[in-house]
């Protein structure tokens, strides 16, 4: 179905879900391809944000036909928890990345192949 007509319709839940999907996919691809440890970390951030967008979209009263079906407050609270936990996760991940950088003198993930058979 034509994408343009989709654009002209009033903004609904699916619009937000598309943005969430795009973020999610970019995050996965980024994690898969990046050789820089911090690049992988950025991929993780994108994935988390993709999920958070979906939660906020579902909990918004304007985007659905009858606003009773929306998640209401739960969506907001879960997004808050996602943001807080992402901060904690980023802190630990960076600490590990710095330790990796100290021991291997480079941030390139491919160098970390000590456990290879």
């Amino acid at each position, binding site marked *: 179905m034509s994408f343009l007509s989709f654009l002209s319709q009033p903004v609904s839940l699916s619009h937000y879900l598309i943005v969430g999907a795009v973020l999610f996919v970019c995050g996965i691809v980024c994690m898969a391809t990046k050789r820089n440890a911090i690049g992988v970390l950025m991929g993780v951030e994108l994935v988390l944000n993709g999920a958070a967008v979906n939660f906020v979209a579902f909990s918004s009263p304007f985007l659905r036909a009858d606003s009773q079906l929306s998640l209401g407050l739960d969506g907001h609270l879960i997004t808050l928890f996602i943001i807080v936990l992402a901060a904690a996760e980023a802190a630990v991940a960076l600490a590990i990345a*710095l330790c990796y*950088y*100290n021991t291997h*003198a480079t941030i390139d993930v491919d160098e970390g192949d000590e456990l290879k058979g």
Partner: protein
Amino acid sequence: MERVDPELVEFDVRTDEMLINMGPQHPSTHGVLRLVLRTDGEVVTDVVPHIGYLHRCAEKIGEKISPRQWIPYTDRMDYLAGMNMNLGWAMTVEKLMDLEIPDRARHVRVMVCELNRIASHLVAAGTYGLDLGSFTPFLYCFREREKILDLFEEVCGARLTYSFITMGGVTGDLPPGWLDRCERFLREFEEVIPELHAVLTSNEIFVRRTAGVGVLTPETAIAYGCSGPVLRGSGVKWDLRRDGEPRVTRMYEDYDFEIIAQHEGSYPQDRDDYPPVPPEAVLGDSWHRFYVRMIECVQSIRLIRQAMAKYQGCDGPIGEPIKLTQKLPKGEAYLETEAPKGQMGFMVVSDGTAIPWRVRARSSCFCNLSVTSEICRGCLLADIPAIVGSLDIVLGEIDR
């Protein structure tokens, strides 16, 4: 903050050590000094000063012209204290020729040299405030210094390079009315000193930035040949005006003044409105060096007042300078005098003709600066200007 041994320097992330050039044209180095710092993050592990950018081979020229012609060269060595430099060279040649100067000239010399000491200490205090980031005291100090330069302009026509003191006395007598203008300056200056203490010495942030920074132990100070406020800041009670050679101490013979150095934990307090020594200040740190300079200004005021009284008391000849072609007796003479920055030594070797065979100037800042690599090891990057500023160096004198 105790000094960190470079071998055990902490590293959190493998930042390869940076080699940073501070200078030669850097806002906080006084003149053209180049400091090569090896830093690891914020901690400075090694400092190597590079000098020689202002070397004008004054000593080579000294071997071609007569001593009186060389006096303008001594002015340009420590351009902030021209009078004291002239005094040093003049007295060295007088020592060689065993020349005595009349009392009236002696008192003029004391007055003028102590005024120049105040001017030099004012510049030191002002630029030190600038190094630590507060702009205002710099302007207070230079406003007072302008008044001193006006007084000098009346005496010898120049504001920075005076060539006023020569062998055999001074080139001219004080103009009429100069003494009460000088008295008015001293009175005004005495009100400004508490202001400077308030803005700098007892300022909480200033104390935090200087107390315990760049600690110089008395033994290291003596071993490195430091002198002046740098030496006295480390608690060594040594001032050539009192402990120097007879010829120098004769100049300050019947003058009553204190030598400013922390003795048994306290400074000589002849006035009660000095700010107390803060608890964090360790003997020999940048704060003490700054404090010694500030109190020396007060002693200089006392000296000038006594010199003015004595000058009015005795009326004799002012002493006429030696002739340009005066033959110097054969032999050597080395004499050190108490310049504002430290002991400024001059040596003259003559072979009997009017032109000296060899002229040598021993600079106080040359030795004071050689201490930097010792006391700056392990400090933070922001401490470098604090330490170098407290040594109060002038590159003209170091490079000659």
